[in-house]
Each structure stands twice: as C-alpha cells, then as structure tokens.
C-alpha cells in the first residue's frame, strides 16, 4: 500500500493543562489529535498513580498527534509554549500514513 511520510508526536502532559495544550495544537493548525488516559508514571517529580484519586492536580494524559513532517516544527513551538512550565515529556518519531487527506 502506498504510504506517505509523517511524524508521530507523543506528548505526556499534566491533565490539568490538557485543554490549553489542545487549544494550542489547533491554533498551530493540526488537523487532529487523540487523547489517551495515563494511569501512572515516574519522573523527576516522583512517582504517581491515578488510583483512588479525585483531584485533577496530579495525573497526566497522553496526546498523540500525527502530522506532516514539514509541520512538526511549528507544532513543537506551540506545544512548548504550554509544556515548558509544566511537568511533561514530548517525543517525536517517524511514521507513515496511508490516507493523505486525513492530515
């Protein structure tokens, strides 16, 4: 099947700024993103888990965004405006997609 080059950007970010991040993504012109729940993790700010939690103060989400390679820089700028001050992790990998119209 014919595929097209793309970038897969995966952002682990505090749940409390999810809306800020997705707004920034849209402003940066992405055509879509997907949010996955995250149940726990560990990093410089220590281990955490969502088990039994009710507050939104701790806890993260994973936002996955498939974009055309040429858009990734713009996207990263937008993402970092939000992520910079918050706890989180951004990674980018090469990917290929089949339907070009999708993004």
């Amino acid at each position: 099947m014919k595929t097209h080059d793309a970038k897969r950007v995966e952002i682990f970010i505090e749940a409390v700024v999810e809306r800020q991040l997705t707004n920034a993504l849209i402003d940066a012109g992405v055509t879509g993103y997907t949010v996955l729940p995250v149940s726990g993790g560990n990093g410089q700010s220590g281990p955490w888990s969502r088990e039994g939690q009710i507050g939104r103060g701790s806890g993260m989400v994973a936002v996955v965004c498939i974009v055309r390679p040429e858009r990734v820089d713009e996207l990263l700028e937008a993402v970092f405006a939000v992520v910079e001050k918050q706890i989180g992790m951004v990674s980018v990998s090469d990917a290929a997609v089949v339907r070009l119209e999708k993004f």
Partner: protein
Amino acid sequence: MVDPLDLALTNLGSPIILSFALGLFAALAKSDLSFPEAIAKGLSIYLLFAIGFKGGVAVAAHGMDAQLLAALLVGIAISFLLPLVAFPLLQKLTRLPAVDIAAVAGHYGSISIVTFLAASSLLTANGMEGEGYMVAVAAVMEAPAILTAIWLANRSGRSSAQAGNEFWREILLNGSIVLLLGAFVIGWATGERGLAEIKSFIVDPFKGVLCLFLLDMGLVAGRRLMGSMGLLTRGVAVFGVLMPLVGASIGLAGGLLLGLSLGGVVLLMVLAASASYIAVPAAMRVALPEANPAISLSLALGITFPFNLTVGIPLYLLVASALVGA
C-alpha cells in the same frame, strides 16, 4: 457539657475513622488494595451532591437571614487571610523556596470538604448539627486563598504566576464548587418536598458511603506519605499540625463573632483548620507550575488531614463547647 474522653473515643471508634485507618494501614503495609479512579470520583460526586442538597434544604427550612451573608463574608475573609499567616510560619519552620511556601499557604487557606463531612457526621451523631448554610460557607472558602497565594508568590520575586482565563475558570468554576453550590441551590429551591423525594438516596446511605470514601482517602494518604518521606522534614511536619491549630483559632474567633451555634462554630473551625487537596492543587498547577506539587499534597493529605480527623475535630469541639456553652 461534652465529656472530652468520651467524645474522643466516640470519634476514634466510629466506622468512618476506622475505615480511614484501614486504608492507611493497607497503604503502609503495601497491600494492593485500591479504588479505581472512577469509583473515587463517583463517591465524591455523590457526597458533594448530598451534602450540598441537605445544606440547601436546611436553609429553606430555617429561612435565610443576614447571618448567612455575614457568614459567607467572614468565610471569604478567613480564606483570604490564612495564607498570610501560613506564609511567615512556613518561612520560620522550613527552608523551602518562596514559591513552594506560597503554594502550601494557598492550600491551607482553602478547605478540605472531606474533613468537613467527617466533622458534620460527628456533630450530627452528638445532636449538634451546625447551620445548614455552612455548606455554602465551605464552598466560598475554596478559592480566595488561591489568589492570596499567587500574590505572595509574585511579591517574592516570582513574576510569572499566570492568572489567565484558564486559571479563573479553574478556581471559580471548578467542578467540586459548582456541584456543591448547585446542589445547595437545588436543595434550597425544592426544600423539604424535594428532600422527601430523594431522601433514601442522599440521606440514608450517606454515612456508609462516607466510610468507603474515607477508606479510599486512607489509601491515598498512606501512599502519598510513603512516596514523599524525603520531602517531609521536621519543620514541614511541624507546620502540618501547627497550622490547623492556628486556623482553628481564627475560625473560632470568626464563629464567635458571627454568633453561630455550637455546631456552626466547630464547622468554621474545621474549615479554617483544614487544607485543600482536591481543588487547590489543580489550580496551583495552572497558576504556579514551578511549585512542587508533592510538598503541598503530602502535607495537606498526609499530615493535616489525619491529624484533623483523629485529634483535631474532637479538640475543636471541646474548645468550642467550653466557649459557646459559656
């Protein structure tokens, strides 16, 4: 007069406190007992809805008066002021960075609704319900302290504290505040008739649900304590038991000033003495992301919450009954 020892024992021996202790034990023993996040949230939705509704019905029954307004204002004032007391106290006791101190101060100015629920439950069991509108007072005391905390952080050279749209929405339209106040208004509007319709849902099983919820809080508090031993230096821990006493004193003064009933005074003390670990942490992550969230949460949930639950509440009741009875 309340018999001190009797009271303390009644409190400690209630299924509610024992459930909390069970959760704490399970966490410290590294059991894998845990509540799914959705269940914990579901329980908290139930509790907020029920307590808000009942508060509203109580106000509808006893009528509204100037005292309600006065109590709201005093509550707001206390929440604004408490961080100003907490900040220098923490500076004395610890070497934490100013931004962390400001964040902690914000948590202690705000309130813990679960502590409020446990206190209401003890009061009701002893026939001293406070004024129904104390629920509304609790709701309005959530947010003001956050503003003071941000002001404190900015003043101490931390200039980037944000107060954008997202922030205001977070503190004013926070889910738990909207639910509590909304249910309060519904209870007020529908009164005894509305309560009769849903009594077997929001009144009868309430205490049992509270037990399960406190079991979960015990688990969460215990796991947090274990995961943050390094953060809780002696000074920090001392603050965790000292500050509730300071808060309770201020709450006492407010309650006496307002001329509240004994139950009302105790509830205001409890509100002032308790620290938020649900609403404020989220707001702080938006407004002061540089602050280490683990410090505030460990203090509020790991030290002050258990302290209030076991020692604080009966103590405040004793003190208040000595003064209000007089």
